């Protein structure tokens, strides 16, 4: 049971960290995608959306290579004296950020696009400069999108398995998240423990989606992918 709690705690820590980082980095990406008219916008949007369709193992495999001792990121982290990222908590964080990126960027992008040009024109005629407009118009009007993005990003990180296994392996308290722990229980034919974790995840996922749909119905417009 202690191992289960450690896995749950690790999973929550991971998901919270990833959600926070993604909101931080995903917001400018989503804003740029919503605003830009450059020709390579489609290419960037496709790259952001890749994790939606790729098997997580493919993503994990490439990340393992780039973050490994011979990969470019690995070389950089070693030069900085951090060592290599695979099989560490932060390695999982980096991998999960890529994996959950579309679940945060797309709702934000939809929310920004739904605002339209007009409120920004209004703010400009009231002397608000570009940064002022972003913080006082774009962010508050995209609030429902931020809530959707945070919930989806968090929930999707909790539910990942393939990427974690490729990048993190199975180190108790470091990289053994709930989904991996569950896999271990089933491998060991410990169905009682597996039931606890599976039931818990099932309940968690339902509550998340239920609150998401309830919230979206209450706010007049709905944002984000139709999950």
């Amino acid at each position, binding site marked *: 049971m202690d191992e289960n709690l450690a896995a749950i705690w690790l999973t929550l820590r991971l998901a919270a960290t990833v959600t926070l980082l993604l909101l931080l980095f995903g917001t400018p990406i989503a804003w740029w995608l919503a605003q830009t008219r450059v020709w390579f916008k489609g290419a960037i949007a496709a790259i952001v959306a890749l994790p939606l369709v790729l098997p997580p193992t493919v993503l994990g495999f490439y990340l393992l290579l780039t973050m490994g001792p011979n990969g470019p990121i690995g070389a950089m982290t070693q030069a900085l004296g951090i060592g290599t990222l695979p099989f560490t908590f932060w390695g999982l964080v980096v991998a999960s950020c890529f994996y959950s990126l579309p679940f945060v960027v797309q709702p934000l992008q939809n929310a920004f696009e739904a605002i339209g040009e007009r*409120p920004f*024109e*209004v*703010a*400009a005629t009231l*002397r*608000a*400069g570009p940064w002022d407009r972003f913080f006082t*118009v774009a962010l508050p009007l995209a609030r429902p999108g931020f809530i959707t993005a945070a919930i989806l990003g968090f929930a999707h990180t909790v539910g990942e398995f393939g990427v974690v296994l490729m990048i993190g392996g199975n180190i108790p308290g470091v990289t053994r998240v709930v989904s991996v722990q569950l896999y271990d229980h089933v491998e060991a034919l410990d169905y009682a423990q597996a039931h606890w974790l599976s039931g818990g995840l099932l309940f968690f996922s339902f509550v998340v989606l239920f609150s998401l749909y309830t919230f979206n119905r209450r706010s007049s417009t709905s944002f984000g992918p139709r999950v």
Partner: protein
Amino acid sequence: MTTHSKGVINACFTLRHEAFLLDVALSLPAKGVTILYGQSGSGKTTLLRCLAGLAHAQIGSLSVDGHRWQGEDGFVPTHERPIGYVFQEASLLEHLTVAGNLRYAQSRAGSESSSSRSLSNKELIELLGIETLMQRKPHQLSGGEKQRVAIARALFSQPKLLLMDEPLASLDAQRKREILPYLEKLRAELEIPIIYVTHSIDELSRLADWVVVLDQGRAVANGSLADVLTALDSPMQRDDAGVVLESTIVSREEQWALMTVGFDGGELLLADNSQPVGTKLRVRIDARDVSLTLSRHQDTSILNALPATVVDVSAGHSQGTVLVKLRLGPKSTAAPDEERKMNAQSGFHWDSPELLLSRITRRSAEHLGLAAGSEVWAQIKSVAVL
């Protein structure tokens, strides 16, 4: 006229957008209400957006009261222009209350410019009648209330130039009647120039001091209200020929429930509207409500007959009619056209002699032998108080 003149708005824009081409070069007075008038698709909103910096004309120059906003040397972005802008449809920031919207404008207003308006913010809130709405969110307001808040918000930013894009167009007739009096009050109280886009002859008649008529991206008329209304070749003459007179209530005849209003060219008897003597009124006289006689008729039910001199006769828009331009007042006292007072500072024609238009049949014109210089009596069948 130099491009940096004080008291003048000089605007040249060439903007191509797919099949549409806006191509204008205008000098407008930097005072009073200038109406941009035209059908939809004539480019009036695009012109207004160019003035605001919301649209960027590929070729353009703009200077407002001595300040350059666009030229070869640069483009001042919208948020650095001291303008107020009222959009066609309600445009309040949905996440803020009415008070929040007003604060948004107030906190970003330039601090130096509090003198640009004679009204305090508090007076403005009272004038627009929005005191009781302050804590509401935009979605709790009616269309007319939203537009009143939007007007107040535009003025809270202490603009040096107020731009209004058909502020009444999205409202029903009832709401229009609700807001127009507020606009008339603002017109009287504000000291800044207003540029107002509309396709409504009613709004034009009530508010305009200066008129620009746009058609297919070009300015086809540009002059004072009287000049544009009475120019016989103006596109305004198609359906809406008529004049607007500035008058003052002189006296009332209570036994008949009538009142007398005076203007430069004479007096008119109107139905009493119970406003006090001395009140200024704008009245509109449509060309089709003016008939002409060579001598004064006593045996007629028509109340208002004024002596006038024919200035010009032109073919009417429809076959069989002509449009007659008349100068009111007996011939001897009427000022000839050349003596029109010029505005010495900016060179704008403001004061025209009091003119009247009459639409009569070609047959009648020939029968009466009307030509420039003929002395006639103009019988006015109806007068609209604006």
